[in-house]
Every structure is written in structure tokens, then in C-alpha cells.
């Protein structure tokens, strides 16, 4: 038994517009990518090999699914024409099909099935032809049946077309509410109706009401209420006193303080209403919430505290620096270049020295552990061009994150908040952490985070 999954780009074109960050076939339904549900069903039916066909690019799918060894099947990829019929597809994939029974799943539709039931023998005994259908989708069987038709109750199988946000919302909620009984869903949970991923930090005062599914690297801060019927993706922060009910929060989203998200789909900087299809786009790429603008009044104590701490660091590190720097420079292990980076104010750039340290010998390793590659930047804190700790400095070629409406997205620092946390400092994760601390951190906690960053940097390097 083998399965062909056939998709046409026009079927999921709507998804590109609404959920632009993820390929439609990898769209998560209850924290599990769409394509995995189909692969699960193919395996349930007894397939040893699956081929994914599409008339457009499927590179992201290939990179995610690879060769299928993760599921114990042989996964391959190919292309099709929009007007290919099931018969043509069988012809175009003749070598793949061989003499076996083939199940063709066509269309961007959600398959409603129950993993506890025996689809394998049913698939083997049904006559050739259509098994299930819906507008825009179908499941067809080809090749002679392997066994005689079985008696007994019909095994439920139906298709729900995913033709817009509303059906996506319904399908996700269905998967959540029927829970791990019918589908294989990710997450660990002591009790049914509550699946939680890895590295999830839940504040003591946060409440979770079933059914709920939470992804990886999620922070639920104080007095938040999650659920009932909440799907939270990965790399999400739900800030204090907010509640998420009957809603989906997709990956890499930050929900601000004191917000009520009810019956919505939140994705990055977009808030969508699945019933009406309305969508609001926030200017700020991460925040969903109100942030009080940083007044120059509160900026001054911070700048003073940073400058004082920088002065302390300069004096303490002066001795090792003056000793190691000439030695490393002469030995060719200290390479520096100037790069232009954005300053805190849009439209201005500052020229920063970027230092590459060769940490392979003892001298270089010591210099690296003491973060001496950042030594020159400490002086810029005294002139208030840089903060002591803030966002990672962005090269001037990239667009400035401080959109006019929100001045709190970016403050370049010698160290970055992302380095203070244990999270890997990759793109989306780092941005969310930095954004959060920019809002919440005061001068005193900044000093604490500087110490953390200082200590963490050598650890990160050795594990990177």
C-alpha cells in the first residue's frame, strides 16, 4: 500500500496571505503541522511509502519531512500539473506505484479520522474508486482490492476543506477537543486535555483550564488565564494578567499585558477573527498590547546606572585587557573590522568595531571568557551611544525595528538580553526575549542581567 498526497497551489493560496510566515502545508493544527496529520493517516492505512506532489515549490516541506525516516516510511517528492487527473498522476508516478494499491489524497483538506480504528483492512478491501470527498478534496483508491469486502459498521472517515480562516479555526479546535484520542498530538500531559511542550515556564499564579495545547519555549507570566480551548504555539510569551480563551496563538508571538484574547487567531503582529475574516495588523512586529513609551525621565537613571556599571567593568577588566590585547594582536588572533549599526534613534547609525577572537589557545580563551572582545564598546556606554545591555546591534543594511509608532523595539547594547537568557540566540527567540526585557527591565535588574550575560557568553560559545 502506498499513498500519494497531491496539492494544487490555488487550494491553499489564502493561507499565504493570512499566515505568511509558514508554508500552508506546514500550517500547525493544534501544534502539529498539517502535513503530519496526512502522513499519520497514510501510515494508519498501512502505507510503506508516501509521495508528496504539488504544482508549486515544496522546498520547506522537503526540509521538514526529509526522507520520512522519522515516521518509518519512504518519503519522496514530485510535481504535478493543475489539470492532472488521478489517472494521469498514477501514470506520472508509475515507478513509485508499482503493482501496489494506491491511496490518492487530493486537496487541502483536513481528514477526520480516529486512530483507534482499523483503516488498514478497510483500505485493503474497498473497491477501486472514491472513498471520501468534500468540496475541493478527495480520497481515492486504485488498484484491485486485496481482500473481499468486510462486513461490519462503516468506519468513519470524512474530509473538511480548509478553505479559509474559519475552517482552519474549526479544524484546530476539533483536533484539540477530541484530543489525543483520535489523533497523535504533540506535547506531554499528565492528564487528557492538557498537552505541554518542552521548556515551558508557568508562573505560580497562572491558571490553565482544559483543553489546552502548549508548544515549546513558552512563558506564561503571572495571573494569566489560558483556556479553555486555547492552542499556544512555540516561542510565545503571554504577559501578565492576560487571558487566552477559545483562541489560537501561533509561533513567535508576544501577547502583552492585561489583554483578553477570545475567539481569535493571533500570529506575530496580526490578530484575526476567524468568523468574520477580519484581520488587524499591528505596526510593531511582535507586540500585541499597549506599552507605555519610555519617557526621557526614566531613561536618565538607566543611562546613569549603565554608565557607572560600564566604568566599573572598564576598570576591573583594564588589567587583563592591557596584558592580553597587545599579545593577541601581535599573534594575529585579534581581528577587528568596523561595521555600521543602527543606533537607538531611527535614521542614525553608529560605527562599531567588530572583534573576532581566536579562542583556541590559552590567551585567546581567557580573553574570550572575560568578554574582552567587547571591551572597546564599553567606552561607548559612557558617551550614551550604547546601552550596557540591550538588543543585539543590527547592521545598518537591515530595516530599523523602531517603527514610528513604537519606540521601544530596539536599544543596541554591548551585551544583549538574549545572551543573558539560556535560550539559543536565534532570530525569533532572541527578538522576543529582547523585546520583553526592554519593556520590563529597570536599571537595577539590567545590572543583574549584565552579570548573567557575562557569565553565559563563554558557556554559549563552548556549546555552539
Amino acid at each position, binding site marked *: 500500500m502506498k499513498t500519494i498526497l497531491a496539492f494544487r497551489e490555488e487550494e491553499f493560496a489564502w493561507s499565504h496571505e493570512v499566515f505568511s510566515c509558514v508554508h500552508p502545508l506546514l500550517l500547525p493544527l493544534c501544534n502539529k503541522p498539517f502535513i503530519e496529520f496526512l502522513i499519520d493517516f497514510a501510515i494508519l492505512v498501512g502505507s510503506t511509502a508516501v509521495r508528496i506532489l504539488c504544482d508549486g515549490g515544496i522546498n520547506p516541506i522537503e526540509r521538514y519531512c526529509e526522507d520520512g525516516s522519522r515516521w518509518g516510511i519512504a518519503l519522496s517528492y514530485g*510535481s504535478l500539473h493543475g489539470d492532472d487527473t488521478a489517472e494521469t498522476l498514477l501514470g506520472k508516478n508509475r515507478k513509485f506505484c508499482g503493482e501496489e494499491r494506491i491511496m490518492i489524497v487530493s486537496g487541502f483538506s483536513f481528514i477526520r479520522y480516529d486512530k483507534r480504528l482499523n483503516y488498514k483492512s478497510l483500505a485493503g478491501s474497498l473497491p477501486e474508486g472514491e472513498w471520501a470527498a468534500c468540496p475541493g478534496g478527495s480520497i481515492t483508491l486504485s488498484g484491485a482490492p486485496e481482500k473481499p469486502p468486510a462486513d461490519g459498521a462503516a468506519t468513519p472517515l470524512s474530509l473538511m476543506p480548509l478553505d479559509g480562516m474559519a475552517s482552519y479555526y474549526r479544524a484546530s479546535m476539533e483536533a484539540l477537543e477530541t484530543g489525543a484520542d483520535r489523533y497523535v498530538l504533540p506535547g506531554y500531559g499528565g492528564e487528557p486535555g492538557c498537552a505541554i511542550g518542552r521548556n515551558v515556564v508557568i508562573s505560580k499564579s497562572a491558571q490553565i483550564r482544559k483543553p489546552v495545547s502548549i508548544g515549546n519555549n513558552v512563558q506564561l507570566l503571572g495571573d494569566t488565564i489560558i483556556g479553555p480551548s486555547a492552542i499556544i504555539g512555540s516561542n510565545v510569551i503571554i504577559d501578565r494578567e492576560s487571558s487566552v480563551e477559545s483562541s489560537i496563538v501561533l509561533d513567535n508571538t508576544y501577547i502583552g499585558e492585561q489583554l483578553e484574547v477570545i475567539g481569535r487567531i493571533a500570529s506575530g503582529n496580526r490578530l484575526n477573527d476567524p468568523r468574520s475574516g477580519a484581520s488587524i495588523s499591528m505596526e510593531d512586529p511582535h507586540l500585541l498590547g499597549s506599552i507605555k513609551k519610555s519617557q526621557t525621565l526614566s531613561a536618565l537613571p538607566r543611562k546613569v546606572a549603565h554608565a557607572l556599571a560600564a566604568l566599573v567593568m572598564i576598570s576591573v577588566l583594564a588589567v587583563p585587557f592591557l596584558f592580553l590585547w597587545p599579545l593577541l594582536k601581535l599573534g594575529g588572533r585579534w581581528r577587528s573590522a568596523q561595521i555600521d549599526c543602527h543606533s537607538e534613534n531611527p535614521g542614525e547609525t553608529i560605527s562599531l568595531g567588530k572583534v573576532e577572537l581566536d579562542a583556541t589557545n590559552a590567551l585567546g580563551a581567557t580573553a574570550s571568557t572575560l568578554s574582552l572582545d567587547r571591551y572597546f564598546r564599553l567606552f561607548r556606554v559612557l558617551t550614551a551611544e550604547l546601552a550596557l545591555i540591550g538588543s543585539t546591534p543590527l547592521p545598518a543594511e537591515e530595516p530599523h525595528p523602531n517603527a514610528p509608532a513604537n519606540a521601544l523595539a530596539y536599544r543596541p547594547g554591548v551585551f544583549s538580553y538574549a545572551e543573558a537568557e539560556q535560550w539559543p540566540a536565534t532570530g525569533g527567540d532572541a527578538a522576543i526575549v529582547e523585546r520583553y526585557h526592554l519593556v520590563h527591565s529597570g536599571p537595577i535588574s539590567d545590572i543583574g542581567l549584565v552579570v548573567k550575560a557575562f557569565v553565559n557568553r563563554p558557556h554559549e560559545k563552548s556549546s555552539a
Partner: protein
Amino acid sequence: MIITETSANGIVIVALEGNLDALSAPKLRGSPPVADPKTTVVLDLEKVGFMDSSGLGAIVGAAREKSDPACGIVLSCMNDKVRRTFETTNAQRLFHIFDDTAAAVDFAATRQIART
């Protein structure tokens, strides 16, 4: 690049072996069955180790000059590497692609009969 021509069912099968790039593209373009607008060709790409836009351009250019542009050149046995190059430029939309040369020949033969 080595070009081998055979035929089956009245359809010419052109099998390529090696790299299809700026160096070898003219050779493909100039080979008689490929260049002749009236001949339907099945291009067997199984042994193509590498293909870049010059090679792709040769295939597309040749297809366009056929009297039946949609089926003048039918492709078969595309490996993953060549397939990804096709997908980078969305060229897979222009051709019928088969994973088995015999199936491609059958398809081409049926289309040819339908035309005449």
C-alpha cells in the same frame, strides 16, 4: 555530456548522461530530434548529475519550438537535485514529468495519436 537516442512506439527517447550546463546545452539543442519541431521527444534525465539555468534554458527553448509546446518534450526520471533546480525557477509547471520512461513514452504516444 553523452546523448543517446532510441525510440519506442514511434516516440524518440533522448537519454542524457553527465552535466547539462552552458558547455553541453548547445549540443542538446542541436541534436536532430530535439531540434525538429515535429518530433515528440521523451527526455530521460536519469543520469543527469547537474543542471543549471543554461541547461534548463535549452530544454525550455527546445520545447517552445515544438509544434505542440505543451507536450513536445516530455521529461522522465528526474532526480532530486535536478527537480530542485526546476522548482527554484518554477519550470516544473511547463512540463509533464514522469518517474518512469516507459510511462512517459505511453503518454507521448497517446497524445500524438490524439493530434493526428
